[in-house]
């Protein structure tokens, strides 16, 4: 079934492109330390709010322009005419651990020391926005995947049990989901965050956010899984399993739930953006990922400075573009998947 799904997905250009884009993004996040020219917390207080450095072709090599500070009060930089530093490919730079395990020093590109390469400019303390964007991708994108995995598991179990058992278990679960869906999500998010922050050490914020987002997010999945199980329960093959005298747990986990998987794959894909946006919102408010880590929401939160708007430091808003791109890609992929799955499952539109 998986191969079929993949094949019909590949036949849809939008699905194919977004799948490739997501692979690219997750790949970039995975190899962030290698792709980035420096480390996310490397500051340079002499080069704050540096604009993106232009790349030029000079002496048969790709070079990066040199800049000098014209007016420190408005952070105005000016390229120095005719001067450029060549990019050094696969050169040694700051040490890092690939995948958090393998110690390495090789970076895709760096420049000779006094010069700097800021592909997307620098922030208020002269840190490289491009590097922080790559490192932040790991957290922002990772939360999406882990969160969806947890929610699907929760939603599948609770929804499956509610639909299969019926009775008081069903109504208890459904009242709970209604409650979760009726309360403004961010209010609960804030309350949960306040309550749980002391239970987690500060370097486990990632885990904390995933737990909070999943605790609020399983309701929708559970409701639909319950609906599917309710309708599947009356199908002949389940009746047959009942008559054969199979145990309820076997029926539930062997026969009922596997039949909801293709729905779950679609729903999971379509709900990843919710987690990415949720993490971004929390970090944006200063309640999510903390320094020195970096995430897209945190970077946007730090861009909330009137100086940035007034002086047009647009490159500090690039994490927003990254979020939009990712969300669109996940939505397109989800829609393509839904179209591919559709002949077997008419999904209720949200």
């Amino acid at each position, binding site marked *: 079934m998986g191969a079929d799904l993949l094949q019909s997905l590949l036949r849809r250009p939008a699905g194919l492109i977004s799948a490739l884009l997501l692979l690219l993004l997750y790949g970039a996040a995975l190899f962030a330390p290698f792709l980035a020219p420096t480390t996310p917390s490397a500051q340079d207080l002499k080069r704050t709010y540096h604009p993106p450095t232009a790349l030029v072709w000079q002496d048969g090599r790709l070079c990066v322009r040199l800049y000098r500070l014209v007016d420190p009060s408005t952070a105005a930089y000016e390229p120095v005419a005719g001067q450029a530093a060549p990019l050094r490919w696969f050169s040694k730079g700051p040490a890092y651990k690939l995948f958090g395990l393998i110690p390495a020093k090789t970076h895709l590109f760096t420049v000779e020391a006094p010069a700097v390469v800021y592909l997307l400019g620098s922030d208020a303390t002269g840190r490289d926005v491009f590097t922080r964007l790559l490192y932040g991708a790991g957290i922002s994108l990772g939360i999406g995947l882990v969160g969806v995995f947890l929610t699907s598991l929760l939603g599948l179990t609770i929804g499956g049990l509610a639909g299969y058992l019926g009775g008081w278990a069903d109504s208890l679960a459904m009242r709970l989901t209604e409650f979760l869906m*009726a309360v403004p999500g961010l*209010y609960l998010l804030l309350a949960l965050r306040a309550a749980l922050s*002391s239970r987690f050490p500060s370097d486990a914020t990632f885990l904390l956010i995933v737990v909070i987002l999943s605790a609020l997010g399983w309701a929708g999945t559970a409701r639909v899984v319950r609906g599917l199980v309710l309708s599947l329960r009356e199908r002949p093959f389940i009746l047959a399993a009942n008559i054969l005298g199979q145990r309820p747990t076997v029926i539930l986990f062997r026969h009922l739930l596997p039949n909801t998987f293709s729905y779950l794959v679609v729903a999971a894909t379509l709900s990843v953006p919710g987690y990415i946006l949720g993490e971004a919102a929390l970090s944006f408010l200063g309640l999510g990922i903390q320094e020195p880590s970096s995430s897209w929401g945190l970077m946007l939160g730090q861009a909330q400075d009137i100086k940035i708007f007034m002086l*047009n430091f647009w490159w500090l808003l690039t994490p927003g573009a990254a979020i*939009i791109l990712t969300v669109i890609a996940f939505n397109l992929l989800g829609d393509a998947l839904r179209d591919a799955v559709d002949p077997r499952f008419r999904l209720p539109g949200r």
Partner: protein
Amino acid sequence: MTAFILRRLGTLVPMLLAVTLLVFGLMSLAPGDFLTPVKAQRDINPALIAELQKSFGLDRPWYEQYLRWLGNILRLDFGYSWTYKVPVAELIAQRAPATILLSLCSLVLAWGLAIPLAVLAAARPGGWVDKLTSGAAYFALAIPEFFLALLAVWFAAQTGWFPIGGLTSLDHDFLPFGAQFLDIAWHLILPTLVLGLGGVAGTLRVLRANVLDVLRAEYVTAARAKGLPEKIVLFRHVLRNALNPLLSTVGYAFAGLLSGSLLVENVMNYPGLGRLVYEAFIREDQFVVLGSVMVGCTLLVIGNLISDLALAWSDPRVRYGR
């Protein structure tokens, strides 16, 4: 009719109880309370702290505090805000109208734009209106609200066409009445656009699908066969039926708006409930949080009620049945 409204308002009570209990419990799990900053001051008398703790009931277990708070609510006493030094009811009465105004404007914007566009798009599926609106909706749904708010502030700062934040100008109090109204409208434009855009996109997508569904119905063919102008078929026969599923979700849309306005208000410096809740959470100003959450939930239930009434008004089949 009255019985219906009363029954709906009756569901408010258990919901408010559950929400406030949850928030109260969660907040009491959090370390510290609103007196923590006071305790950190070196020159403060421990006896004074003990007295304050006693007068606020902070020395009791949390369920006792909750019951006490509940008792005060029944006497319409929402407590006292430690950080703002005013009664909570006063604070909320100041802030809630701004949020209600913003949410209503966004809702009006969302529906006012989405309804005609969705009907036009669905009238010719695959036409240029359809393609354009679908593409725009896809994009709009992918933009996080706080990022859009950032872009709006950036736009305002760069062009100077709009105020950068707030609800009123500095000289608002000295303006004549008409100018005051214009001043507020001027400040509302950007937040409304920011908050409403996602709503436009969401409504558009749902409504387009509904209209397409209804267009297949036989009574539409009958209406066309009668020789009715297409405009009347679309807006009187199709739209009224296509709107019904949407009307029943207005309440949930309101929940989304309240969450969204929390972010938008914080970015755009808008003096509403969302900013109040956020700041109160940060400072652990318990009674402000509880009061705002209650008001938020009440607004939600009222939104749901209005949507049910609107549904009953537009669809005779559901008239006060349940």
